[in-house]
């Protein structure tokens, strides 16, 4: 055993020197063309719930056929993902391609961990929707390719709504709240499942109020949480949350809200269209009762603001398989597979020309009106740090839901937010 340890140490020592001397290897093989692809394995990180299994299967088949290389999808959990990506990008053998949330992309672009995809933008990205491609541009360079976009809708249980005697979906916020009230009174179901920290929903409400989370003070960004518009958004959130028994100090992923909904004892929840698939996976019989509608706004002519969430695909700077990775992006983002993704998941594709794939997809049709009035979190590199656990905005939400005045709750966390915004990258 002692010898084993000794050898482990010696090996470790040797590895250090090998790694130190071999640092240039990457550049040599980076330029290697198609001839070297055969026999390689490309690793792609996608987030839990992003890529439908059918899509992954089809893309894998197409990729392996075309390149002769192998493709390995590794599904990542959201929990602790930022640290995982940061450390992974620092390694010699990072995942070659990775999905990065649009709000996180500027931060990662600024770290130098993502490869410049300018040439890819030129070859396949001419008609990428400008507004959705924006988050992947940093300092004038394209650091990621837009993959898909999505916004939240109301996913509801038709059976429960019918039981409560409601036959049409609400067109205004007040109608929606009234319907939830009716469900609460007439059925034994929980009208809506809305945990206290579904903060992307709050972000949508803030967008709807015309507010913003940060403001510029001199050349620095500081918290804008004390803005009355944010408070107004939070008050709306509170009204909805009053109809839910969900914990006030948890977000929608702990536990997965779709699996709670799948039990058939919840009237509705606010989520991404694809979360329906998670619910169906948990309970097959829920499928026939599923319905979707746009989150209604204050008036019938304008839906509620939504957070325009989205994901980009980026290539790790340290990846030794740059050309292969780009080949993967060309296949995955081709009209055929980008269209298939839109069709299967009901997400907004990266080109307007592909939106026809959304026809007949109930979730996507419910999402479309919202997308028109959607917005994002601030697209600045400083922002990502604010979303790190423990997210101060989530603390703010829990505090307000527990009865604290929004202004006071905002004051409690603004110091933390400002500190994080000021954090050097």
């Amino acid at each position: 055993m002692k010898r084993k340890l000794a050898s482990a140490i010696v090996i470790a020592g040797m590895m250090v020197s090998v790694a130190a001397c071999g640092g240039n290897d990457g550049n040599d093989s980076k330029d290697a063309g198609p001839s070297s692809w055969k026999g390689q394995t490309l690793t792609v990180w996608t987030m839990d719930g992003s890529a439908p299994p059918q899509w992954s299967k089809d893309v894998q088949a197409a990729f392996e056929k075309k390149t002769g290389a192998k493709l390995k999808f590794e599904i990542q959990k959201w929990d602790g993902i930022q640290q995982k990506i940061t450390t992974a990008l620092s390694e010699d053998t990072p995942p070659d391609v990775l999905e990065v949330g649009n709000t996180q992309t500027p931060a990662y672009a600024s770290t130098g961990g993502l490869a410049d995809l300018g040439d890819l933008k030129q070859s396949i990205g001419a008609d990428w929707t400008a507004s959705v491609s924006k988050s992947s541009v940093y300092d004038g360079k394209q650091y990621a390719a837009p993959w898909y976009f999505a916004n939240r809708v109301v996913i509801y249980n038709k059976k429960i709504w019918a039981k409560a005697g409601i036959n049409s979906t609400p067109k205004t916020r007040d109608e929606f709240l009234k319907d939830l009230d009716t469900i609460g009174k007439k059925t034994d179901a929980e009208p809506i499942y809305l945990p206290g920290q579904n903060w992307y929903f709050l972000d949508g409400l803030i967008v709807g109020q015309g507010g913003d989370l940060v403001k510029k003070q001199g050349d620095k960004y500081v918290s804008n949480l004390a803005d009355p518009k944010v408070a107004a958004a939070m008050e709306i959130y509170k009204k909805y949350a009053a109809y839910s028994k969900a914990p006030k100090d948890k977000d929608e992923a702990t536990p997965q809200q779709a699996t709670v909904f799948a039990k058939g004892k919840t009237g509705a929840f606010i989520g991404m269209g694809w979360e329906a698939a998670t619910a169906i996976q948990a309970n097959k019989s829920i499928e026939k009762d599923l319905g979707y509608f746009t989150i209604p706004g204050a008036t019938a002519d304008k839906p509620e603001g939504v957070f325009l969430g989205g994901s980009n695909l980026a290539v790790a700077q340290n990846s030794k398989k740059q050309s292969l990775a780009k080949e993967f992006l060309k296949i995955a983002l081709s009209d055929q597979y980008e269209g298939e993704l839109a069709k299967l998941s009901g997400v907004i594709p990266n080109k307007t020309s592909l939106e026809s794939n959304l026809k007949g997809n109930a979730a996507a049709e419910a999402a479309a009106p919202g997308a028109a009035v959607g917005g994002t979190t601030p697209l600045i590199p400083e922002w990502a740090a604010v979303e790190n656990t423990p997210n101060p905005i989530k603390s703010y939400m829990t505090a307000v839901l527990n009865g604290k005045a929004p202004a006071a709750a905002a004051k409690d966390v603004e110091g933390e937010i400002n500190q994080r915004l000021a954090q050097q990258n």
Partner: protein
Amino acid sequence: MSVQTEGTDTAGGPAVRKGRAPAPPRGADRASRSPAARLAAAPYLLLLPALVATLVLLGWPLVKNGMLSFQNLNPRQLIQHLTEWNGFHNYQQVLTGSDFWKVVERSVLFTAANVVLIMLIGTLIGLLLARLGKKMRLTLLVGLVLAWAMPVIAATTVYQWLFAQRFGVVNWVLDKLGWHSMADYNWMGGQFSTFSVIVLLIVWQSIPFVAINLYAATTTIPKELYEAASLDGAGAWQSFTSVTLPFLRPFLYSTTFLEVIWVFKAFPQVFAMNEGGPDRLTETLPIYAYVEGVGNQHFGVGAAISFLTILVLLVITSYYLRMVLKQEEDEL
């Protein structure tokens, strides 16, 4: 005779205060081939693997950690393998911030509360074990061993379930006992209630070690001591204070020392229970270092906090360490 076993009992006794043991004759050192020299080298050779391991696997990370604490190390520097020295900036930031000292105070109180409860209850259970009949003792030992063996992460999950807001058995019992406001109580909603659950968990897990050890120690107290005490007319309490307690004292010291370290360093229990929440109010020093360093990706600051954490722990345990230093001196 074993010097060790006696040394602990008679620490400070002048009779054993001999100073250094006579070294092997100096001359033998020179003749390196002689058996005496080999004998002199033996202890060092035996210690070598442990020392090398400690140096490589603990010393190196410690030094590395110390170096990181003087660097500006954020995702960009980590990803690009950059080294940006920034002097005492991290320490300055931590020490002048309002959070650090609050966390230190909280950690010390947290450690004190836990250790007092653990030592008190553990000792009482240990003494109880000695009084029990054979069957009952075995039963209680099984209970202790089960609680002791329960892996931390599993135990934390179980406690979350016991104290769950909805359908948690603790809330049900409290409600049935007449405390109706507890029926839907959210234990993770407040600082004190979260700490209560964490303390209960840690105390539950730590008592067995103290109790079983203490029971084991009491079995080694020579019966004659008690006989002598009762001949002197000592009652139960007096024989406890004059025989049991002095005999157990070194054991109690060393166990307290271990418990202080373990509780102060407790990480998975605190972190997994509520991630230091609500509102970062249950962050103890290790959690604080982790959240600032790894969570916030402010790795240099995290390293500085962890270095300060070690310092605080050293200060807390310095009394015992001094005692050990003195005692080991006496033994030789």
